[in-house]
């Protein structure tokens, strides 16, 4: 009599444990791949709700629209991996756009203007890096200040007016494509691939992760945390300069407008990508997928005729959900 229930219980035990274990495994799996799963879910939902969503034309448009955010997310991912944050990233992009526009309207060619745009943006990164790494100013404060400075400079330099840019090269950049992939998203993909390589296959990338993980230990092993931090902010700002080019190409003008949405979305994309804001945990693909997800979300809502006012709300909700999910990531 006592034997059967006992043996039954022992055979039952793993049954009761199995789903629980699977559940835990599932949660961490969800957390690790929040961005990819979210993106797939969004695509499924939107393609049901709107027949236009999964058309080649819309996919192509979405990918082009995502390019700027992808680049900014990669830039932000580098900074966040060192445990910092770059709040000036979209203002830097704006200043880079104005730098490009001024150079263009001064009659310098496309190539020189591009270089000037990127260098203008990189200057902000240099200031960020020096303030944070050498000046020991908190990253939050330093980049908040340069956000304001770069925004102000962009307004002053452009006199607050958009600078029209009629460049055939820029036009080709926005309209050209290989298959459904427009040049902007190809550029973004190349940047993403290079960023992945730098982060995971070079000494510099390893040092970025080490400084973000534990800067004291990194320094004890002979790594210059100061140099790594400065370089990281420089890279981020330089990438913002590249994004500026796409921004000018998209609008057809260098606008000194404040692009706060890009700043918030770049951070949101990194968080969606499963990168911890405390630093040390590098991811490149995750933030890129995060950027694609946010773009798909905005695009889908627009297709469904949802008011633009609801889009920041939707982004906010998605980011909060992602942030909650990251709690279940494997340590």
């Amino acid at each position, binding site marked *: 009599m006592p034997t059967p229930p006992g043996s039954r219980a022992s055979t039952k035990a793993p049954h009761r444990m199995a789903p629980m274990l699977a559940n835990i495994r599932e949660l961490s799996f969800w957390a690790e791949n929040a961005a990819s799963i979210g993106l797939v879910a969004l695509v499924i939902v939107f393609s049901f709700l709107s027949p236009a969503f999964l058309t080649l034309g819309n996919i192509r448009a979405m990918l082009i629209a995502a390019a700027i955010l992808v680049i900014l997310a990669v830039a932000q991912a580098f900074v966040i991996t060192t445990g910092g944050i770059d709040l000036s990233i979209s203002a830097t992009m704006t200043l880079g756009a104005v730098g490009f526009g001024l150079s263009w309207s001064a009659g310098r060619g496309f190539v020189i203007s591009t270089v000037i745009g990127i260098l203008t943006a990189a200057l902000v990164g240099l200031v960020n890096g020096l303030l944070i790494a050498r000046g020991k100013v908190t990253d939050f404060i330093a980049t908040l200040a340069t956000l304001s400075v770069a925004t102000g400079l962009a307004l002053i330099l452009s006199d607050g007016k958009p600078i029209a840019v009629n460049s055939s090269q820029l036009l080709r950049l926005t309209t050209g494509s290989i298959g459904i992939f427009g040049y902007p998203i190809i550029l973004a993909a190349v940047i993403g691939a290079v960023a992945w*390589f730098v982060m995971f*296959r*070079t*000494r510099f990338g*390893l*040092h970025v*992760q*080490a400084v*973000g*993980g*534990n800067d*004291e*230990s*990194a320094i*004890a*092993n*002979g*790594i210059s945390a100061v140099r790594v931090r400065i370089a990281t902010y420089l890279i981020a700002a330089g990438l913002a300069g590249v994004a500026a080019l796409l921004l000018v190409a998209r609008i057809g003008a260098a606008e000194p407008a404040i692009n706060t949405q890009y700043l918030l979305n770049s951070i949101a994309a990194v968080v969606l990508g499963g990168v911890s804001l405390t630093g*040390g*945990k590098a991811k490149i693909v995750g933030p890129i997928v995060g950027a694609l997800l946010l773009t798909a979300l905005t695009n889908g809502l627009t297709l469904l005729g949802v008011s633009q006012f609801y889009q920041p709300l939707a982004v906010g909700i998605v980011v909060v959900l992602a942030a909650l999910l990251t709690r279940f990531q494997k*340590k």
Partner: protein
Amino acid sequence: MTTSPSLSPVSNPGADVLLTAENITKSFGGIHALKSASITMRRGEITALIGDNGAGKSTLVRCLSGIHKPDSGTITLDGEQVVFETPHHASQSGIETVHQNLALVEELAVWQNFFLGRELTRRLGLIRTLDRKAMKAHAAELLQDLAVNAPSVTSKVRRLSGGQRQAVAIARAAGRNSKIVIMDEPTAALGVQETARVEHVINTLRDSGVAVLLISHNFDQVMRLADHIWVMRAGVAVAGRRASATSGDELVALITGARAA
């Protein structure tokens, strides 16, 4: 000052002395942390440095590892007088230190920590990339030679136990072509089993020919591991003893000053 004349490098030049620190002094402001401290270390031996808090152990060790520059005194390594300006300098001369905080990055894998700051690279066209394969293989080899419970080199340090972390830090120090590995309280935060494992690592390291300088508060451990023991008191190395020729009681007496050297 030394107890047995045979230990003095001067009177016995034939002994296999690897390092001699002579009359090292170091002051911080008005505090004389080291007042003419002299010790020797022999090749292939574990030398322990014991003493009460504030006796000058840490300061002496910091002078040897290049963190502090002595005010006076000489350090002779392998017959050559050396002056260390930085820890990097000491490391280049073959003196590695395993600090109490271990200087590991938890988010990185064991092999990444192993080569942090001195990564192996290979050329890929114009760029240099990490030679991941070589680094993993090299780290695995060194770890397996040293530790019984060697962790996988691809696992993150975050997932390792305290003893495994200590083993990684020690193996890393040993792997840098070091002649001397200095360990500051290597088992202070470990349980009994983990301590035994780390002690095994230290013994293996000694057997491989590396000289170990062990700072420890644990007399039992010092008696178990050390070949030679230096006792420090008030900034001076007051006594040197062969471990086989002393006892815990004598060491305590020397530390407190109840017994003169």
